[in-house]
């Protein structure tokens, strides 16, 4: 893992991010992949008000609970 990677729920909104790794189990990892969250994909956090995050990924909006977001590692793109 690159040392600059941080969990998604700590990344903060308003800056372009890039997914580096998913540290979830097999089933959840597959699910997130199916929703378009693949390594290298660009992510932006649209809303982060302490609850679930709303993301922009591949032209879609996606809401994720914070605990799941914590298993997605990103770096600033």
């Amino acid at each position, binding site marked *: 893992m690159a040392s600059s990677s941080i969990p998604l729920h700590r990344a903060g909104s308003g800056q372009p991010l890039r997914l580096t790794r*998913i540290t979830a189990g097999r089933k959840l*990892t*597959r699910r997130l992949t*199916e*929703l*378009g969250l*693949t*390594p290298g994909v660009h992510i932006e956090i649209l809303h982060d008000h302490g609850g679930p995050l709303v993301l922009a990924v591949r*032209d*879609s909006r996606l809401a994720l609970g914070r605990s799941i977001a914590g298993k997605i590692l990103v770096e600033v793109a």
Partner: protein
Amino acid sequence: MAIEKIFVALAGNPNVGKSTIFNALTGDEQHIGNWPGKTVEKRSGLLRCGCNDMQITVVDLPGAYSLSPYSPEEEIARDFIVEDRPHLVVNVLDAANLERNLYLTTQILETGAPLLVVLNMLDQARARGIQIDAARLSQALGGTPVVELVARRGQGMDVLRDRIVELATAVQSQREGAGSNDYAVGDVQGFQDPERNSCCV
């Protein structure tokens, strides 16, 4: 003449307009909600098509992102497509979210199910500056027919209805001829191959 029983399934991601299309096709008034996950079980109704010698049942499946089910609703959708083998799967896509939607499309194609792709919400896609070349999409999907639609305004609904009747009846006669209700065996095996079915990271 015997009444033919033909089944057509509406499949797609959550919140792409499947139930709106279902109501338009069947004349039903199933509740429509603008949120994902509204349909949690499959519903069926008869296609209004003025086709007397056959009966086409439309089945509105719960929304699914994938045929590898993560939720009970997705399992219902997967089981119907893979095990009940409808004469036609109508895969409804949100044209404004094409990339994510096409993941399910490729999985349905791999099952070998007879497929018709519907590009819905084209008005919203255009408003966001997205132009889609339906002919090229069809080509990229191996010749899968593609119909363009704005379901909430009814635009394209007559074309969709005609295509459904045409494609589903063609599959029906084909299956009658082959004496089999199965998809091509090779396709089903391909879908079940654990290596092809495993994912991805």
